[in-house]
């Protein structure tokens, strides 16, 4: 397990060093790298699909209201190579996400790191922003 995590961390480090790995569309046209977000919530839906994996989670606001957020990640092939599996994240999991927010101000973001709160395992969601 420790070795697997080490491999994931190494892969993240190498990709982070190599720049943006979002393959499908222009990152800059949809997300703002100057809009860093970090939030914790409960996973409500996982779409393990191409060209991007999307997952959704309920986030509780300080006033008690709940908002559903959608997060884009890389493609299944990219995440499989980073150590994810299609069941790494399940509905009901508590996760903490570091992401870059959408330019249009909607509740969408591009996830870069995802931590599974139950195990503390930190998984790569997408590389740091830059040019695609």
């Amino acid at each position, binding site marked *: 397990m420790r070795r697997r995590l080490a491999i994931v961390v190494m892969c993240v480090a190498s990709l982070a060093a190599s*720049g943006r790995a979002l393959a499908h569309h222009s990152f800059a046209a*949809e997300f703002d790298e100057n809009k860093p977000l970090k939030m914790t919530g409960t996973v409500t839906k996982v779409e393990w699909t191409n*060209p991007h994996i999307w997952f959704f989670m309920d986030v509780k606001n300080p006033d008690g209201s709940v908002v559903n957020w959608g997060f884009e990640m890389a*493609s299944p*092939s990219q995440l499989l190579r980073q150590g994810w599996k299609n069941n790494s994240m399940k509905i009901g999991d508590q996760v903490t996400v570091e992401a870059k927010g959408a*330019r249009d101000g909607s509740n969408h973001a591009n996830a870069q790191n995802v931590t599974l709160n139950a195990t503390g395992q930190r998984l790569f969601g997408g590389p740091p922003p830059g040019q695609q």
Partner: protein
Amino acid sequence: MRICELTAWRRTMVALALVCGTGTTALAQWLSLPLPGTPRTADGKPNLNAPTPRSADGKPDLSGIWNAPNYDFVQHLPPVGTEPPMLPAAAALYKHRVDTLGYEVPMTYCMPHGVPDAMFVAAHPFKIIQTPGVTILLFEEFHKYRQVFTDGRKLPVDPDPAWYGYSIGRWEGDTFVVETAGFKEGSWLDNRGHPHTDALRTTERFHRTNFGTLELTVTVDDPKAYSQPWTSRNISLVLRPDTELLEHLCENNRDLERLKEAPKIGREQ
């Protein structure tokens, strides 16, 4: 018939050996499996510095899974710090693409990268299969392919324009030279947005310098977009050993809706 049976039996045994050697989980995903023909160091790891493999005719064998090491090449095809000599219409189109943050890149609409930038998408490797009459490029991104014919045929005259055009290849020493023409407009030469027209002709020059390195340049000749031919930056791709391509399609394009709003957002900046 007996040869076929023998071949099938050997394939079965090889498959069984692979299952035993790598475990079923790894084999099921084909993410990590020892590929035959891979030179290895004493500890069993792929030796990417081994000499360039050669095919039966003595020419370098370009076969393998190749990957851009970063996004530099797909982002900007011309040499670093330079811009090619664009004619006014191409320059205006290029400026529009840069000003609008590249939101109209064909991928937004689930259309793939083209020639040459499909080879430079760092997130998705591509595979070269070199055979005596044709060299095939299989692109993981969007599950596409190109064929480079080496059987002596000429480029077609007045072909139906195609996204990837029509390609023929020849050897100049150890360099594989690929000429492509018959393009339709639509693809971008790179993510930055350098345009081309249907007059585009490309010349790609591939040189596998060792087992793990494939170097190339691309010359762009498009008299309707550029005042003179220009040659790309020097590009170097790396081999991804002991793995396979995975499927990548465009089945859930959730981004499209927000990307359509991008031109407004881009102008606000």
